Each structure stands twice: as C-alpha cells, then as structure tokens.
C-alpha cells in the first residue's frame, strides 16, 4: 500500500480545516488536508454567510463578541475578496422586547463592537423593504462572507506553500501505536484506492463530525449537531445584514449573499449530522419570521433551502436546547486529556472566527512538536485579496461590459462564461457538477440549473475526459441533489420555474431515458 508523509495531517475541509492547513503551510510545516466530500460541503458551505460584527453576541456571549469583532477586522484586511461590505443593522420589530435595545448598547460598549444608533427613518431609507413599524435601529460592521471563496482561497494559499489538499478522501481509521497517533488510513473516493498518510500531528477539524474522527483515535469528543435550516430568496430584498434586536433566536437574521438573500436559521439537535431533512415546520417558521422583518416576505420567491449542522462542543452538561451550548471554540489537546500524543481537535466555533481557531490549533501543533513558529495569517492576504478591495456585488456584471455577450455565457443567472467554466472543470479535474457549482455558483440563480445544466454537461463531455455515461450521471445526480433543496420551498414563482425546468429536462431533453 502506498503512503504519503507530512508534518501535519488535517482532517476536515471546511473553514477550520482549510484555515489550519493554510496556517500550518505558511509556518513551514508540510501539510496534507483530507476531506471526505468536496471542500466546503459541510457546515461552512451551509451557513448563512454572516461575518459577525459581534453584535449578536454582545449581550448573550461577550467573549464571543470580542473574538468576532477582532476577527472581523482582520478578515477585512486579509480576506477582502471573500467579503462584501454590506454593513449590518439591528432592528427592533414590534415583536421584539423593547428593553433589549439598552442591553445591546451596553453590551456593545463593553465588548468593543461598534454600534451606532440611527433614526428609524434612516434605516427605512437604507432598506425600503423593511417593516415600517420598526422601533429602533443600530448600524454595525457586519459583512457578507462567501464561504467558497474563503475556503478555496485558503486551500490555494496552502498549496502555494507546498500543502496537498485532497477532497474526496475519506478517513477510514487513525493509526495509534503506543498512545501516539502516527497518521491515518484514507480512501480515495473516486478511485477506491486506500493508502496511509503518516504524520507527526493530526489535527481533527472535522466540525460536527469531529466526534466520529476522535473515536478512531480512541478519544472522546462530545460534539452535538445542531441543525439549522436556511432559505435563500431570489434577489436581494435587503442590502445589509439585518438582525433582530433581541436575544438570539430562530429566524432572526436576513442578509444578502451575492445575488440572493438568506433568512436563517433554526436550531434542532440531530443525532446524525448527515441526516438533515428539512421539515415543513422549519420552512414555515423562517417565512413567518421573514414576514416580520419584510412585509410580503412569505409570498416572495424562495429559491433554495438547505440545512447545516453546527458543531456544538459540550464537555459535561446535558442540555435540552442546543443553542445554549457554547458557541465559542474549543481546542482539545488529547495528550493532556487522554494521553494520546500527536492528536489535537479544534471544534465548536463559527466561521467568523475560523482564522483564530486555526491559529490556536497550529499553536498546539507547534507545542506538540516542540517548536516555535509565528502565525502570519492575520497579516498575509489570501490569494485574490492582495489589493484589500472588498468584493462587489456587481463584479460579474461589470466584467461582461462593454459587449456583454462577447463569449458564451453558460450560466446566465450567475454570469458564468464558457471559458471560466472550462478552466474550472480542468483545474478541479472533476466530473461532478456540484463541485463546479460550489466553485462558481453554477445553477445557483433563479432557474436553478434549468438552462445551464444541459450546457454544462455538454461542455463537461466535450472536454473528452468524460464519456457520455459519466456526463449523464453528472447531470442526473445534479438534478437529484438540487431537488433536495428545492422541494421544501416550492411555491409561487419558484414552482413555476421548477415546472418549466421539468419541461426542459423531462419533456424536451427526456433525461429520464438516458442510457445508463
């Protein structure tokens, strides 16, 4: 059996794992990252996209708030291209406790979160769709964070510094000999090949799945999975991150994310982080909460629904509602906890603080290896963010000027050109259209692939690396996967779209009868 060697083996391809891989690589450690699915397909790829200012935690969890505002400032410097400076608002609707506003002011002062109260009229001028009955409004430096850009940026940066990033590699076991972790047994999910990775330290950054990984090493990491449902709406009903001015609860954030806007989220404990069916209740709750913020929200066009699972680390207590379990991160040095060397777990936390979590984890790696190497991720910009210019909503539209159709635009909703698609297919060397979707936003617009997926399949096949059965499979599995996020929210305009898409795929193309 073949094997690979590295100083650091990172398990988990979300923001934490990618952040660890980057930090480690920048500090000169040879690094390998393995992720059982595609990068950013776990929690990081399924959250609402809010780069916290900390306002949300200013009252409830002050230490989290302090971390958030510090990281917010850092990421604006080093990950500018992954962020859109939407700004944030905290608004009190008639349904919200009127006393919370004062608590909010005090909490922000105490934690250093900049919060400026503005007149309601001004808030309504900025956000004309907001409920005209709001009572108070504050401006905070929230931003919208594109998790795919962030994680792939970290991955690319890590690769530039010699790391190997291996998506679709599943950890089958962790090798422990004499209370020391020597590495892992992994399987390449595409080829089926199994091989070993030998490492000096394994960093378990598997998020909600960290407990499962830890058991391979004979360690206990009690991570509860808190499922949260989110719904993307077809266009930017609001242009800033709008938060309810109240104790954090379900459905109290509505924020723009690229061309859509997202309402979230719910919080239900699920025993299996891979089993996340979206129920009617969650959808109704989110639409109702959205309606409180934006009258007419319920019947506005809902584009797609998805569920992510928060990793909630719990050391001892047993709680009914997972929300109250700490949302701060936890670094577990298993040498200290269970006497197992060469193994650390970094868990909990939120994407906003991923860099800090990674720093903390790689600091632990340094300690385990007995070296001192300084973290530079707070200064070193990610690839693409060197100019420190934050991403603009209109970037893709402006890029097509002055002759918008100078080349084929394959995904018209998200303005993806043929050359961009071809480059991405080649670079990723993938036959999975969902992988492409996560990199380019393919099929993430209003038509949800109705028009672009046939085109993308044809282009995938055209590249000659993919035969017709693989191309067919790519298309069919894309449609099946896409439907999971569509059927829970299918009503009104989106149902109309879905029917048209049915006509295209089944009526016109007849994909049901493609040769297997």
């Amino acid at each position, binding site marked *: 059996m073949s094997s690979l060697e590295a100083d650091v083996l990172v398990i988990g391809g979300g923001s934490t794992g990618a952040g660890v891989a980057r930090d480690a690589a920048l500090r000169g450690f040879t690094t390998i990252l393995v992720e059982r699915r595609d990068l950013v397909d776990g929690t990081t790829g399924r959250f609402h996209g809010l780069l916290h200012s900390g306002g949300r935690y200013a009252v409830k969890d002050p230490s989290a708030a302090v971390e958030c505002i510090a990281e917010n400032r850092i990421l604006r410097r080093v990950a500018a291209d992954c962020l859109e400076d939407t700004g944030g608002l905290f608004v009190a609707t008639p349904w919200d406790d009127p006393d919370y506003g004062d608590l909010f002011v005090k909490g922000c002062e105490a934690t250093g979160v900049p919060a400026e109260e503005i007149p309601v009229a001004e808030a309504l001028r900025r956000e*004309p*769709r907001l409920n005209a009955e709001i009572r108070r409004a504050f401006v905070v430096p929230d931003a919208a964070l594109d998790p795919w850009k962030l994680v792939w940026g970290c991955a690319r940066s890590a690769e530039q510094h010699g790391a190997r990033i291996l998506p679709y590699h599943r950890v089958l076991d962790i090798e422990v000999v004499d209370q020391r972790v020597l590495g892992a047994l992994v399987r390449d999910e595409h080829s089926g090949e199994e091989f070993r990775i030998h490492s000096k330290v394994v960093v378990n950054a598997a998020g909600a799945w960290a407990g499962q990984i830890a058991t391979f090493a004979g360690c206990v990491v009690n991570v509860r999975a808190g499922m949260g449902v989110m719904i993307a709406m*077809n*266009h*930017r009903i609001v*242009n800033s991150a709008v938060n309810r001015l109240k104790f954090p609860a379900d459905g109290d954030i509505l924020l723009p994310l690229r*061309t859509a806007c997202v309402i979230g989220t719910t919080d239900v404990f699920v025993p299996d982080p891979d089993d996340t069916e979206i129920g009617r209740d969650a959808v109704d709750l989110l639409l109702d909460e959205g309606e409180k913020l934006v009258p*007419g929200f319920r019947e*506005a*066009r809902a584009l797609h629904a998805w569920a992510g699972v928060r990793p909630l680390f719990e050391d001892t207590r047993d709680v009914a509602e997972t929300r109250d379990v700490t949302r701060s991160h936890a670094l577990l040095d298993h040498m200290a906890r269970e006497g197992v060397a060469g193994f650390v777990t970094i868990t909990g936390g939120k994407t906003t603080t991923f860099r800090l979590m990674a720093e903390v984890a790689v600091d632990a790696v340094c300690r385990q290896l007995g070296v001192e190497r300084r973290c530079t991720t707070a200064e070193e910009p990610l690839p693409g963010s060197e100019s420190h210019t934050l991403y*603009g*909503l*209109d970037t*893709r*539209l*402006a890029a*097509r*000027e*002055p*002759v*918008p*159709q*100078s080349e084929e635009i394959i995904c*018209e*909703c998200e*303005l993806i050109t043929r050359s961009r698609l071809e480059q991405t297919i080649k670079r990723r060397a993938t036959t999975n259209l969902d992988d492409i979707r996560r990199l380019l936003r393919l099929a993430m*617009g*209003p*038509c949800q692939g*109705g*028009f672009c997926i046939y085109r993308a399949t044809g282009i995938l096949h055209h590249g000659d690396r993919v035969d017709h059965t693989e191309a067919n499979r790519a298309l069919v599995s894309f449609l099946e996967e896409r439907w999971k996020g569509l059927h829970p929210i299918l009503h009104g*305009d989106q149902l*109309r*779209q879905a029917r*048209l898409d049915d006509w295209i795929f089944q009526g016109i193309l007849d994909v049901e009868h493609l040769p297997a």
Partner: protein
Amino acid sequence: MSDLIRASLDHCVKCTICESFCPVSQVTPLFPGPKYAGPQAERYRGIGVSPDSSIDYCSGCGICTTVCPQDVKIAEINSRARAKLWEERGIPLRNQLIARPSVLGRLGNPVAPLANWALHNRAVRSLVQSVIGVHRDAPMPRFAGRTFQKRSRTHAGAADAPAVVYFHGCGTNFYEPILGEMVVAVLEHNGFRVIIPRQDCCGLPLQSNGNFPAARSYVRRLVANLAPYARQGLPIVANSTSCGLMLKREAHEILGMDDEDLKAVSGSMFDLMEFLLGLHDRGELRTDFGSLPLTVPYHAPCQQRGHGIGKPALDLLALVPDLDTIELEVDCCGIAGTYGLKKEKYEISMAVGKRLFDDIRATGSDIAACDSETCRWQIAHGADVSAVHPVELLHRAYGLDTNGSRRAHAGAAGRRERSGS
C-alpha cells in the same frame, strides 16, 4: 427603484421569450437583450454606481414587457436602470434637447421655413451631428408654422353634442396640425363636440432619456389641464400611441407618480382607434365610408401592445370598402421615440427597421399606415413611402377631405423629404 417594479423580477423564469422578441439585441451585440439587462442584471445592481452601460442601448420599445407571460416589468426595470445610469453621469445636452419636443417646437415654428431648410440641409446636419450628436440622416419632421393649438383656437363644435377631449400631443401640434384637423373632423362626423384644452408635452421623451424629475413636472402640468374633463366623465382621446400610453400607464409605473389628477386622466384615456372601435362595437360609429381602393400596409407601433387593446386600427380599416390592409408582422420600426436620432444609435435603429421597410416596399404600395408620429417619420425615411395615421384613411373614406384630396393622399406630414441624398 420602486419595490413593485424591481420585485417583479422575481417572476422571471428565464424563459427567453422576451429575448426572442427584442428587436435591438438582434441587430447589435452592444445590447444583450431584455432578460439579461432587466430581471437578470437587476440582481447585480443597487450597490454603488451602475455597472452596465450597455443598458443604454435598450430602445425602450416595451415589446418585452408585453410578451412576457410572467408579468415581469422588464421594460420598466430597464427604463429605471437607464435613468439611474444617466443620473450618475449627467444627461448630455443632446438628450436634454431632443427630449423637449415642445420647446424645440416653440423655437422652430415661428421661423418654420428657415428651420425646415436648416434641418434638411446636409451641411447643417453634419454640423449638428458633430456638435450635438444627432445623426445627420435621422428622420426629422417639418415645422408646420402655425401650431394645431393656434389653428383650433377658433374652432367650435356643435354645442349640444356629446363631448370628447382631444389630447393631440407635440407631434400633431408642431408638425402635423392637419392630422389634428382630420381627427377633429372624424370625431365631429360621428356626432361629437371636440374639446381641445391647452396642453403641452407629456414628458415621455424626458422619461426615456432618464430625466425623471423634469418628466414628472411635465406630466403634472399636462394632467392638471386634462383632469377637470376626466372628472366630468368625458373620454380623452390621443392619436399618438406612445403619448397615450405615457398617461395611461408609464407615468405611474416608471415615474412612480400617484397623483390624483393622473389617476383621473389615466382612467379616461383612450387611444383614438381604440375609442372609435369602441363606438363601433356599440353600434355608434358612422360607417358611411366611400370606396377607397388602396392596398395599405399597416404597422402597429410597439407601444400599442402596451395598451393591451389588440390592433383596433385593423378592425376599423376593415370597414372601409375596397381598402386592403396588410398587417405587417415586424414588431418595431426602430425609431423608438428619440433613440434613432442619436448618432451612436441611428445605425442600430435603421437595422431594426430594415425588415419592416423591406416588407413595406415589397407590397408595392406608396403609402403605409401607423398610429405613432415618430414611427411614421422613420417609415417614410426608411421605406420611401408616405406614412399616414390610420385615421387619415377613415377621414378620406368618409369623404371629409374637402381641402384638396391630393394633400390627404400625400399624408399629413408631407412626402418624405430627403435630407440631401
């Protein structure tokens, strides 16, 4: 942008029906089409300066909205995006000038012979093209000298007849007063007393050139004059389809105006042919038409679709004995109000209209009918025929042209003038 207009982008299912009808995107790569520029691009706008100047190549013909099966307000979204673009850049002098036909009319009419000579003189037009940016070959009407308002001041109808109010528009007033006289004659022939209130421009060219505030004040002034009649329950007829549509719908939907006067006027506004057909449907239209043995190709202006009334002129012309009306199937003549006057858009405009001109020429007729004055001027220019308002044919069939039938044959606007060829 008003929430309702922008929110209508949610109805778009990317079916591309609008794109298959857009006349401009078919002839130039500079305009990506209504679906692209409207509901699709709008999801990327709203932050910072307008990112897409290609929106300026939308001609505003409005066909997209009328064929959209989903009620997306595509043309309206485009119109507002364009206005925002020009608000940011500052509207150039040329657009400010050509957007004020009543100002130009008042300047030109007192010196009509000189003004007409100048506007149809090649050298002057070349100078105008380089200095101001109006294409030297763009079709220009002729100042009539004496406006329709002046001519009709002393005209009075039968005192006890039911009244109808006439919104004649700038085209009739400054360039085609004889058409106005024909409209009055046809209405009087059908037993109406025609009231011609003081009136000025409806503001449509200002709107389509992105000057919304100025457009709004024109609308307010105009509806202030017309509203009292509307409130008396009198119908208001317009012989220009685009101006009529402005008051029926666009001032509200695009300019966002909600004034009471406007509402009153909108509810009472009729396109002239719509009004006459309505009379006919109630059995109240005089059908004492004489024989008019002509073959006349008819072009329904783009804006007429916006009215949602079908093509009433066809049904009316069908009543005239021996008149063979050919319904032209091309959607747009290209002029789109002031669009085709602009030097950077003239070629596009002529390319858009080319098939229409070819189809007209193929009929062999030397006369064509169209309800909109700017379209008539474009058709006369592009197809080298006389272009008349369909009411002129009714006027002739009624035998009302006592002032020399030759003139009516040539059309109220006169034969197409070649600007030096």
